[in-house]
Structures are given as C-alpha cells and as structure tokens.
C-alpha cells in the first residue's frame, strides 16, 4: 500500500531522513516508534505531501507521489495536535472537511456517536476542552472511511474511556482490512495492537518488520525492552564508531 | 467718485433723448447702400432703424451724433476684411445689432466697433461673434458698454483680440456683459475712474480681466471663470474690487487674481474658489484684503517677496491645499482675525478667537515653492510629520507670518 525507496530529507545542513527504505504491509497495523526528533513526523509528513522530499520515491497504492494530491482521498490523518478555526462550530468544521473532500461515500460517523460529539455540534471550537478537540480530531480522521489511517499519537490527551473507545475503533478498522500507521515516541498502551514495527532514530531505520520477530531476535520479553535494547546497541555502535 | 458720475451721465443722456423727440427724425434702412446713405444724410441726433438683414461693409465711419437701433437683430458682417464700425463722434448710441467676422490682423486692431476719441457713447445689447476685437475704445470718455454678448471662436492667442478693450479712456461704465473665448475678456490700459460690474468673463485664452496703469477703477460683482491665466492687474493704485467671483482658473501660470505692483487698493468680499492660486501678490504694498472667501484653492494666497504692509483681515480660508505660501523668510504683512479651516486650536476664554496662534505657512509649501516636483508628496504621512515638526519649531517658515486671533467660527 505504501512503499518508500531511498527517501532523504534535509533541512539545510540537518539530515532529517537518511535513505529510508520501508514499506507498510497491507491490512496490517504498523507501529512507528522512535524518540523525539527521530524523524517520525517528517516521515509521516512526507507521505502526506506536507513537505517536499529531497530525494527518493514514495508510492501510495502504486502511485508515485509527485506533488499530486488526489491520493490523499485514501488517507485519514489524525495529527498529534488538533487545531481548527477557533470561531467555527464543531458542525461547521465537520462540514468544512466534508466539502473539501468532495468525493464522499459511506461516511463513518461511528466515532462521532461514540464520543457523543453531536451534543457539542453548536459549540465554537474555542469553547471546547483539549480532550474534546482531540475527539473531534480522531472522528474526522475516521469519518471518510479511508483505506489508510495515519494516526500521530492518537491517544495523547484523551481520557481513559475515550482512549479505549479509540483503541477499539482502530482494531475494528484493522479487521475491516485497513492499513494503519500509528506513531508514538513512547511505548504506549497501543503496543498490544501493533503487528508491525518500524523503529526510527536520527533519521535512520533501525528495524522494520513483525513485532514478534523484533521481540524474539532481541531475546526480550516485551516490545518496550526490545526497543530499549535496540537503542542501547545503537548508541554503543555510535561510540565505537568514534 | 465715478459712482456719483453715472447718474449725472444718465441725466444728461435723458435730457438729450427728450430734446431729440422734438427735433429728430427716424430713418429706416433695409440694405447696406441705404445704411451708408442714411449715415451721410442724417442730421445729428437722428435715429437710424435697421431692419433685420445682412449688411456687409468695412471701416464704416460714424461722424455725427446718431442712434443706430437694430430691429430684430440685423447682422453687420465684416467678411473677415477688417474693422466694421468706427465711431468718431460724441453721443453715438448703438443697440441690438449682431456684429460678426472682423478677420484678424497682426498689424491692425480690427474691431467690430472702434470708438476713437469720442465721448458719451453707448453700446447696448449687441452680439459680437468671431471678432478680433469686439469693442475697442481709444481716448474716449464717459461711455457706457452694457448687456453685450461677446463670443470669440479662436483657439490661439495670436488670432484673437480682446473682448472689451480700453486705451487712454476715462469714466467708462462696463456692466452686465458676457464675454467668452477672446484673448483677454476685458482689457484696460491707462484708463481711469471707470466702473466694471456684473460682467461675466470666462474661458478666455489669456486673462478674464487685464489692466495696467489704470488707477481708481472699481470692479464689482463680476464673475471670472476658467480663464487660461485668470485675472491680472498690474502697476496700478487705488483699485477697488468688491464682490467678484474668481473661479476654476487652473494651471501652473493661472491665478484667480494676479496682483503685480498694486498699492493702496481694497480687495473685499470676493470669492476665490478652486483656483490653482487664489491671489498671487508680487511687489504689492499697503493693500487691504478683507472679508474675502478662499475655498478649495491650491494656494489661497501666494505672497511673494517685496510685498509689504498688506493686511489680511477677516477673510475665510476653507479647505485650501495651502493657505499661504511665501518665498521670503521675513514677513512684513499682517494676518489677523481670519477664519482658517485647518486651525485646530481651542477657545477657553470664549472670546471667539482661538487661544493659540495659527501659522498658515506649512513647511511643505515653502519647499514646494522652490521645487514644484515635491507636490507629488502632498499629504504624505512623512510630509505631515515634517509640517508638524516645523510648526513646533519653526526653522524655514517666516516667524511673523502668523494669525494671532484665528476665528473659531465663520462669522457671516
């Protein structure tokens, strides 16, 4: 579904992504992990066309990205921080996104109902709490029934009940055959739903493959320990190299 | 005073008419030959009535006191060959005739009517079309020129003479004439004690009114509009201008009223509206400017060097781009008790005058006086800042050019 070849991105002298080669396995849930500033967000933004890549290729559904935009119909994106025009109502924001994504078929308003957003419909964005904004953010990502879901720290800022509602929703969509990319800089409670892992650090991919492979190859008990071990090895390599 | 002489002049005239009723006869003419015969055969004080025909002749002289009256506007056509009528006798009276086509000359002053050394003549209710000069008076006294309509059609000054032209004349009364499209509308040179009132002079190629060396004349309630160079008066004393309107005279050399070497004169109750320069003074002394209104002019007053002891009192300045400008760093003129629409002061003691003085000369107007191109920065924020700075700390503007009693309200 998404295939990335030799992707590089520089911001001036700073190399944000260094020859990334990675694919997302179709219909699987991939967990993109890495510390702050590791390149996670840059990678996601490259896929979404929010930044211009320095070199390399990205394919979404076999289409090579080249400043085109219609492929994004297939993607639902939930940014880490939600921000909408302050003086619009919840309903107006939803209408705005609906109007922008003009090809609307079988809308999925399950999250709107689950999160009970209907009762907030007439409130202005600036009157909403951070949690409610995050709910709206999630609801919009799922609303258009996209084949691909890119969720950036989706449970951050959500209360435990909403968080588990969202987790259920993610699993439900996965079972419907959606390809999902989740990111986090910490190993969160979402770890259990992950099937594939991409571990990124300093713009380099250190691991990509099945979660179970990672755990067994490192000989650790769980993902958190496996990742820690990877990071330790990485820093040792780094100091040996010097 | 010439105003006193007008009634007496009329009185004489009325006596003269009455005496004629008894002894004079009336001759009717239908063509040019009859007209010429009539002029030859008529006795003094006879009346020649001219039927509505087209009469063509040039340089026809009137040598005795006669009354020429047109019936239903006959036409005297000069066929572009020169002067039409020459009046050489006193007491000639011409009324109700259309004069046209004198032709032009660079050496002769071709005129529709030339009054040459004749006194007590009247030119009334005639029309003048396409004439080089329309009415030309030389060395003539006590004449009256009223209710004539003069329309020139030339576009260039050299092909055009003056509407009403006076030279070495005295006690002339010019009123209610309409003059358009001549070189100068009304021109006076070496003419004394005359009265010019209620005339309209507009769209002339040079000046609406132009006089030189013509002392003790009165100008009142005339309208001078859209003349190429406005009105110019030069080298004259004792002028009285009262209640005239100077309007819409635009151009870099155009003035509502240009005063050059004028002294001891009174300019009162006039209106200066939308002229590039309302009044331009050069070398003028001891004149009084009072109760005039200056509205929407580019420059209300351009007070140039060597003008001294002029007084500007109780005038109204409304919405002029520049109220006063000068090219001199000293000032010997007086401004007092005027109303300035740009004045922003207050009147705490309620005496009707602002408590802080008004400086009508702005820094930018001084700069523009030397460098016209700077007009392009008119009303720019930066220029307003400069004006403000200069107002607080005068450096370039004359310190004594100041109105210490600016009126708070327009008193009419």
């Amino acid at each position, binding site marked *: 579904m998404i295939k990335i070849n030799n992707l590089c991105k520089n911001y001036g002298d700073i190399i944000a992504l260094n020859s990334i080669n990675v694919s997302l396995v179709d219909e699987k849930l991939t967990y993109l992990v890495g510390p702050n500033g590791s390149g996670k967000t840059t990678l996601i933004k490259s896929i979404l066309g929010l930044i211009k890549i320095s070199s390399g290729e990205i394919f979404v559904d076999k289409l090579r990205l080249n400043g085109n935009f219609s492929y*994004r119909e297939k993607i639902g994106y939930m940014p880490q921080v939600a*921000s909408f025009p302050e003086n619009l109502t919840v309903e107006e924001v939803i209408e705005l996104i609906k109007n922008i994504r003009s090809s609307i078929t079988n809308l999925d308003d399950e999250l709107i109902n689950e999160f009970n957003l209907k009762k907030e419909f007439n409130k202005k964005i600036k009157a909403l709490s951070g949690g409610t904004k995050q709910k709206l953010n999630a609801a919009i990502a799922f609303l258009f029934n996209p084949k691909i879901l890119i969720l950036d720290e989706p449970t951050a800022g959500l209360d435990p009940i909403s968080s588990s509602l969202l987790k259920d929703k993610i699993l439900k969509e996965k079972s419907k055959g959606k390809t999902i990319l989740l990111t986090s800089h910490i190993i969160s409670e979402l770890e259990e739903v992950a099937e594939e892992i991409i571990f990124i650090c300093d713009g380099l991919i250190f691991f990509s493959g099945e979660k179970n492979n990672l755990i067994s190859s490192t000989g650790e008990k769980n993902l958190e320990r496996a990742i820690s071990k990877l990071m330790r090895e990485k820093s040792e390599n780094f100091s040996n190299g010097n | 005073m010439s105003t006193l002489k007008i009634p007496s002049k009329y009185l004489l005239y009325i006596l003269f008419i009455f005496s004629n009723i008894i002894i004079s006869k009336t001759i009717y003419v239908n063509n040019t030959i009859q007209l010429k015969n009539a002029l030859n055969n008529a006795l003094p004080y006879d009346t020649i009535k001219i039927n509505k025909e087209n009469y063509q002749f040039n340089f026809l002289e009137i040598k005795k006191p006669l009354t020429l009256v047109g019936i239903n506007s006959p036409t005297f056509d000069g066929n572009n060959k020169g002067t039409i009528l020459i009046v050489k006798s006193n007491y000639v009276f011409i009324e109700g005739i259309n004069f046209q086509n004198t032709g032009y000359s660079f050496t002769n002053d071709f005129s529709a009517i030339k009054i040459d050394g004749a006194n007590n003549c009247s030119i009334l209710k005639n029309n003048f079309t396409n004439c080089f000069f329309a009415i030309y008076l030389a060395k003539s006294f006590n004449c009256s020129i009223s209710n004539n309509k003069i329309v020139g059609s030339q576009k260039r000054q050299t092909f055009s003479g003056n509407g009403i032209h006076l030279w070495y004349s005295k006690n002339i009364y010019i009123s209610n004439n309409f003059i358009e499209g001549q070189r100068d509308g009304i021109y006076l040179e070496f003419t004394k004690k005359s009265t010019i009132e209620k005339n309209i002079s507009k769209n002339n190629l040079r000046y609406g009114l132009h006089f030189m060396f013509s002392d003790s004349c009165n100008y009142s309630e005339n309208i001078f509009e859209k003349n190429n160079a406005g009105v110019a008066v030069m080298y004259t004393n004792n002028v009285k201008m009262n209640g005239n309107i100077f309007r819409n005279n635009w151009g*870099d050399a155009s003035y509502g009223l240009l005063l050059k070497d004028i002294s001891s004169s009174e300019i009162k109750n006039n209106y200066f509206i939308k002229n590039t320069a309302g009044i331009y003074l050069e070398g003028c002394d001891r004149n009084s400017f009072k109760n005039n209104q200056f509205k929407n002019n580019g*420059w209300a007053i351009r007070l140039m060097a060597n003008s001294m002891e002029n007084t500007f009192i109780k005038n109204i300045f409304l919405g002029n781009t520049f109220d006063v400008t000068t090219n001199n760093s000293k000032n010997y003129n007086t401004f007092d008790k005027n109303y300035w629409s740009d004045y922003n002061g207050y009147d705490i003691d309620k005496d009707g005058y602002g408590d802080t003085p008004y400086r009508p000369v702005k820094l930018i107007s001084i700069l523009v006086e030397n460098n016209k191109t*700077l007009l392009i920065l008119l009303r720019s924020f930066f220029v307003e800042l400069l004006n403000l700075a200069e107002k607080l700390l005068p450096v370039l503007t004359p310190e004594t050019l100041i109105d210490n009693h600016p009126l708070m309200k327009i008193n009419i």
Partner: protein
Amino acid sequence: MKILATVIKNQFQDSFRSKWIIVYSLFYFLITFGLILFTNDSNKIILSLMNVNLIVIPLVCIVFGNVFFYNNREYIIMILAQPVDRKYIYLGLYFGLTFAMSLSFLLGVFLPIIFSFKIFINNFNIIFWLIITGILITSIFVGIAFLISMLNENKLKGLGISIFSWFLFTALYDAIILMLLQILQNYPLEIFSLTLTLVNPIDITRIIIINNFDIAALMGFTGAVFNKFFGSVVGFVIALFSLINWIAIPLFIGLNLFNKKDF
C-alpha cells in the same frame, strides 16, 4: 473551485466572528463617528479617513495577516493533509481573511457616513474612492503579510519584518523620495518622481485621493507630464493598474512559496 469557495467561506466566517475583527470594525466606527460629531466638515473628515487608509489599514493588515499565519499553522497542516490542491488553500485563506478585513473596514466607515450622508453630498465620489482604495490597501497588505510569513518561519522575526515594511511603505519611502527630489532638483524629474511614487501602493492611494481633492493645486505643476497624468483618466488607470499589481505580485510569489513549503 468549489473547494476554493469552501475555504474562503469558512475562513471568512471564522475571521469575521473573531473579536479582533470586531474591535477593528468598532475602531473605524468610532473614528468616523467621532470625526463627524466633532468637525462636521466633510473635507477634514475625508482627509482624516485618508490618513486612516494610508496608515492604520496597512499596519493592522500586515500585523494581523502575519500573526494569522503563524497562529493557524496546525489548522493549515490538517487541511493540507486532505486531498486538495495547495493553491486553493492559500488563496482561500487569503481571500477569506481579506474579505473579512475589508467588510469590517467597510461597515466601520460606511455606517456612520450613511447616518450623516448629508454632510458628504458633494463628496460622494471621494468617499467612493476612499472605500475602494481602503479595500485595495487591505488586499495588498494582507498579501504582503502572507508573503512575509512564507519567507520566514520565526513568528517574532516575521512580525519585525512586517512592522519594518509598514514603516518603509508609509514613511521611509517618501522620506527617500523627498531627499532625492531635493538633491536632484536641477534635473527634469517629472517622470522619475511619478514612477517612484507609482511604485509604492500607499503613495498611489494617496495620489488617487488627492487627485480628487487637491486638483487645483496639482494643476500648479509646471510639467505637462504631471498635468496630463493628474488631469486625465490615463493617470488614474495607471494608478489603479499599479495597485492591482501590488495585490497580484505578492500573492503570486507567496502562492509559489506556499506550494513548495515544508509544513
């Protein structure tokens, strides 16, 4: 086009409901109303409003437009992740904000004038041009603000550049012209000075207004070029064309930068 209309509409609604815009509108309302109340002299009111056009609108628009872009970065990212052409987003945000600012100016100035239209009976044409140029200046400076936001990432730096640009356009530029014209006053400078002024949108606006207002003085120019320029339709068309360029060019450059920008 439907997408463009959607973005414009929502941006307009959002901005027009913002309390800053309401304060902005109220500011014009109070200024205009105050002027009418205190002077009653339509000429003075018009000149003061012209200064508002020349000074306040550029400042507010350039600052507001700049802050707007930095403050709405997350929203812009969210909307850019949707399947839309980037240029519609930029244009949509630009026009939405410009319409809101223009309408706010229009209401603030127009309502008090309508209430007391009798004072302005002889000056309707200048009022008309004040409003037109006010809207044009709004469009220009929102565009410039957007362009400045595109040129650098730092909010404070952007704000600094914005305020400096405002100062350049409103005062510094004229100071430089004044100096040049004084230094070079022995040369024929008609076309030179006209060209210089026609480069600055604030000067153009000023000239359009004073061409209605101070025409008697402007006719005092000795040069034929000036009289031709100020006295005829030609000059006016050139001035208007130049203003429209000032909308189009920053918008075009900003749009290109936006298309290439990393978010």
